[in-house]
Structure formats: structure tokens, C-alpha cells
């Protein structure tokens, strides 16, 4: 890997190594990719990509590690008006295999604050697109990124890392979907206010809920919330009437006693012709009579129930993460094998082996057809092999010459593609892109 100065270097900081104020200071929202690559000669830094999210800033480069690492640190400190010394306290540096593995982990959301959250893959894709536009992503990073996306997809489909909700509000929405299926026909009612209730309402809105009603003792507060959620404010006195229309009820008032009783809902569910109702009680003390859950077609979850689901899901995600690690390990090895082949000597060796095998096969076929004696057959084989050597002499000599240029890896990759040297790998790669 090091023979051709194609070290893969990753340096960065994230939520594990740096506090939020440091992450904010060294964030690179609109980073000048073209500018950073102009700080290095093309021989030193061949490829670069920057991933900057609220939880991490990472530089992924290909080139000469001795020069890249201090160069990037200097550039980063300068552009963020910080110091290299300060950065040094928070930065991690990975090389080659560990760098590849880290990229796969990040893409698969194993390194995220909330393991399994899906946003990171989109952010990585955006970073890759920016690098492509700036022309700083070439053979190795191109392949590495495609492999990272493929690995993330494998982790997502082969493990259940992202299948379970890990926030209270999202857990409530997931449960609502288990009851009602598609929420586009469901109406939600928000009683009172509060951060968690609003978050749940927001999740419901994103899940396509048909209508949100907001009830508050102070109508003006309800109207304000209704504006935010594009809902409808209802006076508190009409609570009973609106309950008949609500499929999902989220309650979080500061009332010292229950505001919805079992008897009340028993009458309501009959009027609703037994359409199911899902109550989420986020208030402490509770707003909704716990006996409600005994009624047919009525489901009640309070904050503790939801918290329990979230905790169980968190444990389950950690277990799934172990399975994901095995997938990442497997993909890292595959990438390493490809990388090792992306050098001059193994490429020439593979080409000659392939050509000679082909020559031998064809010579044998012809010998059989012409019924040649063993001596004649041997001569035919020698001739076929000599032909292969002569045919490949010019392409090989051209390839050797290109190794001095900055695009040497591109030529090597192209050469391997022309002569189909990654036959099986190509099929595999293409299939999974």
C-alpha cells in the first residue's frame, strides 16, 4: 500500500473526542475543497474528501502521510482560527486499514451518537458529491465511497440496527403505526404543551398524519401551536367532542389530576364505532386514567412505558452492532485486497498469467484439431505464448511510463478494467452499486 504513496489517511474529531464547543469551532460547513488541495502538490495529496456534521469533522485523504497529516492540521487550524496544539488534543488519526474500517463504520452509523441513525449516510453522500464536483475524489476514494455505501446498505438490511426507535417521541410514532398502519388517515390530538409532546406531534406530522388538533386551557397558546403544526386549535371545553375524532391523543398538561377518565372514553369509543384509539400520556402526574388500557380497542402508554421500549431498543441496537462489525471487517478485507492489486507489479503479473493461460488453452484446442505430435504441439504453445508477450509489450511499457504521472492510479485502474483483471470483483461491485 505504501509503495506508490497511496496511504489512506483519516483525521478528524467527533462527539467522542471533542466537546460541543470544540466541534463548533472546528466545524467546516462550506469548506473550500479546491483550496485545501491547492496547498499540496498533486504528488503529495492525490485525493481528499471532508465530512462535516454537527457531531464530527473528518478529512479523508490519499497520498503521502508524512506530509499530509501536518499539512491538513495546519490548514484546519488556520481556517477555523484555532491552533494546531489545541486541535492535537482532540484529533484522531487513522491510516490505511483502520482508516478504511472507520469510514465503513461511520457510513453504517456505528460511530454515531445514536447508533443506527440514518442521517449520517446522507451526509456522507453529500460530502462525496462535493468532492466529486471539486474533482478531489479519484480512483481510490471513489471506490472507497462506493464500498462504504454498499457496506452501509448491507448493515442496514442484514442487521436490525436501525429498525427500532431510540427516542421516546419516535417510539410513540412507531407504536401508532403498529396500530393504524399508514398514518395518512389518522388524526392526532395534542392536549397541553411540552417539549416531548411537541416532538411527538412533529414526528406524527412527518409521518403524514391527516390532521392535528390542539387543545389547551389557554386558547391563544393552542392557536400558537396550531400555527406551527399547521393544525387546528380547539377550546378546552370542546375536548369531549374532539376526542371522538382523534385516533391518537398525546397529553402533557400540568393538571394535578386525571383529565381523561375511563368512563368518558368508554362512551367515546362506542360513538366512534369501536375505531381504535391510542393515548400517549407524557404528563407527570398522569393526565389519563390508567384503567383506560383495559378497554377494548383502546391503547394507553405513559412516559415510563415508552422509556422502557427505548431502553430495550438501545440494548438491542448494541447487540446488532456486533453483527455489523463482522460485516465491516469482511468488507474492509475485500477493499484491502483490491487496493493491493492496484499496483504495477501485481497488475503486470496478473495480465501475463491471464494471457498465457488463454494462449495455452487455444494452442491445446488447435493441437487436438490438427492432430499434432507432442513436439509440434509444444512448439505451437511456445509460439502462442510469445505472441501474447509481444502483444502485451506495448501496453505494459505505456503503463510503466504513466507511473511517474499524478494520474498513475487512474491509468492502473483503467488498465485493469480494459483487460478485465477484476472480472469477478467488477461484477460484484457493479451489482451492488
Amino acid at each position, binding site marked *: 500500500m505504501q509503495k506508490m504513496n497511496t496511504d489512506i489517511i483519516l483525521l478528524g474529531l467527533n462527539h467522542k473526542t471533542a466537546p460541543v464547543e470544540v466541534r463548533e469551532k472546528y466545524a467546516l460547513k462550506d469548506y473550500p475543497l479546491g483550496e485545501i488541495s491547492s496547498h499540496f502538490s498533486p504528488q503529495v495529496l492525490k485525493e481528499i474528501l471532508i465530512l462535516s456534521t454537527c457531531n464530527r469533522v473528518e478529512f479523508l485523504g490519499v497520498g503521502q502521510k508524512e506530509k499530509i497529516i501536518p499539512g491538513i492540521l495546519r490548514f484546519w487550524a488556520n481556517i477555523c482560527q484555532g491552533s494546531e496544539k489545541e486541535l492535537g488534543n482532540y484529533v484522531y488519526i487513522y491510516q490505511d486499514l483502520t482508516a478504511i474500517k472507520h469510514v465503513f463504520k461511520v457510513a453504517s452509523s456505528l460511530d454515531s451518537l445514536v447508533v443506527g441513525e440514518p442521517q449520517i449516510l446522507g451526509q456522507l453522500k453529500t460530502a462525496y458529491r462535493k468532492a466529486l464536483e471539486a474533482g478531489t475524489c479519484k480512483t481510490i476514494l471513489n471506490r472507497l465511497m462506493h464500498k462504504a455505501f454498499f457496506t452501509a446498505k448491507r448493515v442496514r*438490511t442484514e442487521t*436490525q440496527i436501525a*429498525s427500532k426507535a431510540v427516542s421516546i417521541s419516535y417510539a410513540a410514532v412507531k*407504536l401508532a*403505526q*403498529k*396500530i*393504524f*398502519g*399508514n398514518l395518512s388517515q389518522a388524526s392526532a390530538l395534542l392536549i397541553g404543551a411540552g417539549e416531548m409532546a411537541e416532538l411527538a406531534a412533529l414526528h406524527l406530522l412527518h409521518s403524514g398524519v391527516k390532521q392535528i388538533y390542539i387543545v389547551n386551557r389557554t386558547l391563544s397558546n393552542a392557536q400558537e401551536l396550531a400555527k406551527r403544526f399547521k393544525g387546528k386549535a380547539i377550546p378546552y371545553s370542546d375536548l369531549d367532542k374532539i376526542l371522538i375524532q382523534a385516533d391518537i391523543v398525546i397529553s402533557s398538561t400540568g393538571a394535578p389530576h386525571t383529565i381523561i377518565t375511563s368512563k368518558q372514553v368508554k362512551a367515546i369509543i362506542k360513538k366512534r*364505532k*369501536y*375505531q*381504535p384509539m391510542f393515548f400517549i400520556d407524557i404528563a407527570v402526574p398522569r393526565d389519563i386514567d390508567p384503567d383506560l*388500557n383495559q378497554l*377494548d*380497542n383502546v*391503547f394507553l*402508554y405513559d412516559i415510563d*412505558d415508552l422509556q*422502557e*421500549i427505548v431502553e*430495550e431498543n438501545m440494548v438491542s441496537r448494541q447487540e446488532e452492532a456486533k453483527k455489523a462489525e463482522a460485516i465491516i471487517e469482511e468488507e474492509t478485507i475485500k477493499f484491502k485486497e483490491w487496493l493491493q492489486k492496484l499496483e504495477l507489479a501485481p497488475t503486470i503479473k496478473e495480465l501475463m498469467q491471464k494471457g498465457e493461460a488463454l494462449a495455452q488453452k487455444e494452442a491445446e484446442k488447435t493441437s487436438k484439431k490438427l492432430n499434432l505430435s507432442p513436439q509440434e504441439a509444444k512448439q505451437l504453445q511456445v509460439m502462442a505464448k510469445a505472441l501474447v508477450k509481444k502483444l502485451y509489450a506495448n501496453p505494459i511499457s505505456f503503463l510503466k511510463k504513466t507511473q511517474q504521472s499524478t494520474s498513475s492510479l487512474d491509468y492502473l485502474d483503467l488498465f485493469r478494467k480494459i483487460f478485465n483483471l477484476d472480472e469477478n470483483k467488477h461484477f460484484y461491485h457493479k451489482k451492488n452499486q
Partner: protein
Amino acid sequence: MKFYLSLMAGLLYCAGWIKILLGYIRHKNKLKHLGQMTAILGFGLHTLILGLSMQKSGTFMGQNYFELLSWTILLLSLLIWIGKKLNFVFFLGTSMSFFFYTSGFLLSYKLKHSIAHQTINFWFSLHIFSLSLSLSLLALAFGSSLIYLYMEHKIKTKSKLPSFSREMPSLTTCDRLNHLAIVWGFPIFSFSLLSGFIWASLVWAKLFKWDLKEILALVIWSFFAYLFHQRLALGWKGKKIAKLTIFIFILFLVSFIGISYLKNLT
């Protein structure tokens, strides 16, 4: 020849069902699709067997009623799957079809048609076919009710949902399938009984013989009518309806198998 064709259709149903089941457990869509294709292949072969049987003997019932029932279940599953885009219906359909087909195949030496071929006329064919259709709908409603009760219990008791439950339909979807099956199933079942009585009056010159089968058919019809009424007129949904559906289907199975078995013994 027919035996081998029947065996092959059964094996295709079995393979299709296993693949779909594994697809659900392992969350593999490809496996599910493969299973669906295999089951459809089995259905094609089964259709051919019934067609050949009809050509030979003039009856489409196959070896016994269970064989026809398994065919109509899969036919309806296919139609609902295509029309309503309810994937799990196909899973239910293949499970039920596989069960009835295998039962029919294994019991073929026990359960033979007790009706002589010369007495099979238009009304009897209509009776059997509509009976099979309505019972297939009831079978699908039974399956969706089982899933409903399982999921409802899990959500209600706040138990941990197993991993395959994410592939399960929502309670509303299960209830929707139950509604569809009952709303169509009951009128077809009523028509089936009517055509049966007409046939009986033509063959035996008697509308009602107080035969055990006839009495039980009327009992099942009464429960079915009650279910239909509560569902449509009172708007019952969910748990009560699911329990009643399961009860009616089990009542049908027990009475049907019981009567057929007793008749074959005597």
C-alpha cells in the same frame, strides 16, 4: 400420473410457504418474492390438476373438498394481494392453502366425495363452489384475526415485540381484511346454503332432511349472520370481531371434518 402431479403441487406449496415464512423471519424480501413465485407455480399446477379432473369426471372438486378449498384460498389471496396490495394476505393464503392441500392429500383415502357423480348437477356445483369461496374468505379472516389478537395482546400488555413483528401488518390492516372477508363471505355463504337446499330438493324432493350436516350448516350460518350484523350494523371492530371469527372458523372445521369422518366410518 395424477398422484405425481398432486405431489408436485403440494411440494411447490410447501416450498413457497417455507420461503415466504423464512423471508418474514429473516426480513429478506427476495426470499419472500421467490416464495410467492413458487406458490404461484404450485397454484398453476393445481389449476391444471383440477382442470384435468373436470375433463375426466365432470367435477372440478378434485380428490376432496379440502383440495378445492386450498385452491380457492390461494385464488382469493392472489386477487386481494393484487387488488389491495396487502402483502401479508399472500402469506396467510399460502399458509392456509398449504395446510388444506396437505390435509386433503393425506386424508384423500378417508375423505372421498360421498355424492355419486350422476347426482352432481348445476345447483350442486354452484353450492360447492360458493361454499368453497365463502369458507376461503372465512379462512383468510381467521388468519388475520389470529395476527390481530397476537399483536393486540403484545401492544396492550406493553410486551417486547419480536423481531418478525415489524413485518406484521398493523391492527387496522388486519381488521380491514376481516371486514372485507366478512362482508363478502357471508352473502356468498348464504347463497351457497340456498343453492344446496335447491339441489337437495331436486335430488331428494325434500328441502331439509334434518341431516347433522344441514343442522350444523344452519348453526354456522346463524353465527356468521350475527358476526355480519355486528360488524355492519353496529360497527364492531377489533378484538370481539376477531374472537368471533376464530370461533366460527373452528366450528366449521370441527363440524366439517367430524361429519366427513363419521360418514366415512359408517
